Every structure is written in C-alpha cells, then in structure tokens.
C-alpha cells in the first residue's frame, strides 16, 4: 500500500512539474552563444546610447549556466540607454506574457531602470513597455509584460489580438535618467513567453 502511495505521489509531482514547465517557453537563454542578439547599428551611432559590447557570460545566470553580458558606461547627468535586440518573427498567439531576467552586480548603484520593447506588425511599430522596472543591485529582476488584448503594459498602442501574432523584434533597454553613473556589466537571461 505504501509503495502505491509513494508511486502516486511521485507521479503527481512529475505531472505538476511537467504542467508548470509547459506553461513557459524559453526563447533565449544564451547557452549556445548570443543566439542572434546584437547591439543595433543605430545605437552605436547615437551619443545617448552607451552600450560598449555584448558577449555570452558564465558569471551569472538565471537559467542554465550562461547569460548575455552587456558592458555599459552610463555617464550620469543626462538620459542614456543601453540596448540589445534580436530580429526574428514570432507568433505568440498562444501566450499571454513575455518575461526576462536582468541582473546588475551588488556594487552597482541603484536607479537603473529597464524595459522590454517590441517591434510589431507590417509597419514595424516600435512599442515600449508603459512602465519601467527598477534594477536592484545583487538581485535578478524579472520584467513581465502582458501580451493579451486590452493590456496596459505597452505605450501608445491599443493592444489587440494582432499585436502578439506578428512580433518582429525584441529589444531590451536599460537606462539611467540623469543618475546613476555606472560603468560595468549588466546580465540578461531567460527571455521567455508564458501561457
């Protein structure tokens, strides 16, 4: 009898784990390199964009062993941003949220903020999140945004069903608005969509 109960419990746990796992699809976790992510050319040319280089890193990760490291140089005293992106067509009709994890080292200052930006539809519309997330030094911060019709998580757009059906780029931007100044790495990992 005990054996049967044990087997049932293990089976239950496995089924639960499988269900949870099935709820999320990891799009990029940088276990095999940059996986197509890059700094857009225009961002290298703009003086208010301060990312210096990107590379896979095994220093910190929220999923697997690697993350994307972006080296930045925020001077402070004005708005500056650091951005990475991937151009790829996605249909997320079956998903309700997009999420990613961002880490800044313990000795980084407070005050950096981050958003996800999507480029959507035939018009390649640039759509930023309507609010930014504060990055906390020494902690992974998870950014989450609702993709479903009526979502308020996106700026200057009425989100309808077509929004998530035709996503063409994902950008992640970290910014400093006057302060803080910070020179060092930022780690990005585990970009995923959630049912």
């Amino acid at each position, binding site marked *: 009898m005990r054996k049967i109960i044990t087997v049932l419990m293990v089976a239950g746990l496995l089924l639960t784990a499988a269900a949870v796992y099935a709820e999320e699809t990891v799009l990029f976790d940088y276990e095999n390199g940059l996986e197509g992510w890059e700094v857009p050319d225009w961002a290298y040319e703009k003086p208010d964009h301060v990312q210096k280089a990107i590379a896979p890193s095994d220093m910190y990760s929220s999923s697997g062993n690697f993350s994307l490291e972006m080296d930045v140089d925020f001077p402070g005293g004005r708005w500056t941003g650091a951005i990475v992106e991937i151009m790829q067509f996605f249909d997320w009709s079956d998903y309700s949220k997009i999420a990613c994890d961002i880490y800044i080292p313990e000795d980084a200052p407070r005050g950096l903020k981050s958003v996800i930006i999507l480029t959507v539809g035939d018009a390649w519309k640039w759509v930023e999140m*309507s*609010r*930014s*997330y504060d990055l906390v030094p020494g902690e992974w911060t998870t950014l989450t945004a609702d993709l479903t019709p009526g979502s*308020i998580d996106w*700026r*200057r757009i*009425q989100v309808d069903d077509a929004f998530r059906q035709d996503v063409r780029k994902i950008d992640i931007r970290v910014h400093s608005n006057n302060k803080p100044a910070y020179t060092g790495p930022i780690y990005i990992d585990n970009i995923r969509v959630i049912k």
Partner: protein
Amino acid sequence: MEYFRARVPASAVICGFLIIALAGCGKEGKNNGGTLTSVSPAKSSVKEPAKKETPPAISTRPITEERIYYDFEAGFSGWEIPVWAQGKSDYAAKEIGLSEEFASRGKKSMKISADFPGGKWSAALVEIQQYLNLGAYRVILVDLYVPKEAPTGLKAKLILTVGSNWKFVEMSRSVPLIPGEWVTVVANIEPGSHDWKRVVPDEEFARDVRKIAVRIESNQKPIYEGPIYIDNVRGGK
C-alpha cells in the same frame, strides 16, 4: 389691419420683424459662402460663436462600466513611495507592503505605514509611473481605508502627471477618510472637468497620463501613526 392691431401686441410685431431680419442675414451668409448644406440659417448664425466659447459640458450619466488597473492581488505592479519623498520631514509614508487585512476588491490591498506628527502639514504619498491612455474613461477612482481606531481628519486626493511636459495636476478638492469605512475618491477626467486644480482638462489630458499618485494629508491635525490601505485603482465610464 385694424383687426391685426387689436389682436396682436406691438412687442410681438417687433419680435417678429427681428426674427425675419435675423433669418434673412443667415440666408445671405450661407449663400455667399456657397454652402449647400441644409442647416437652418437662423440656427447657424446664432449658435456657432457660442459653441467656441462654451467649455465642454460634463456628462451627468451614471458610471456603468469600470476597468481595474491596480488591485494589488499580484504585487505592487510598480507602485512605490517616490525617492524624492523618502526622508522628507513633511512626508509621512514610511513604507509600503501588500496586506490581506483589508481589501475593497479581491483579497489584498496596498498598506502604507504612515506617521503623521500633527502640528504641521504632512502627507503620505504613493505613486506609479506608467504611461496610460485613460481617454476611454470619464473618471478615475481609488478606494482608501483607515482602521476604525484612526482619528478623523485625514483627507485624500488623486494627483496625475500628464503630457509631454510631465505636468503635476492635483485634484481641486480632497476627500475626508472615514475610520472603519472604505472611501472612494473619484475624479472626473473628461474635457472641461472642474476636479483639477489650475487645470481644465482638454481632450489630450486623459490620453497621456504618465503617473498616478495618491496623497493622504493631515493639515496640523490629526496625529496618526498607523496603516492606510489603498485598493482598486480603476477607470470608469
């Protein structure tokens, strides 16, 4: 003619001539403009200038539909005590947390731990920075609760930051909180609303909201150290 004079007062005759004259003017104006629309000339000549000067009328229809923006069931969703308010002697919000003690909707609310010293103006302020288009809504609403042991005299208002110049717009009135009861603060965001201090909203006002803040004030009194609960921030139409 004698019959006419006997039955119709002189003032009515004068009015009649005036009406005919005004109608004639309207006709001439329309003809000169080459307009082919069938709008009554008398109406257009009298009402058009008035339209430009009259502020938009506020609808008195009841609010029948609401959309919840923040109910604190799954976290703060970005609400915080702003950095500039932390450590200021006249700002009384010490910290915020999620609470299951009271809720006006669902199971949770945002709890502000406040400390109003009394004897001077002080306020507890929480806010969210998020770009929102509230253009589809006529009012913004928020529920506030102070425990029944709390003193009377605390007042609350909504503050919006709107537009590309980040204009800070306070409600023109504050709403008294009632110990032991949920109180709803309602502000009209329609064009022409009188609910905002030094600003009469235009069409753009609600379409480009960048921050929502809730401020609870004690003006000299009362003294109060304890929790204030905020829940169910929503738009209504």
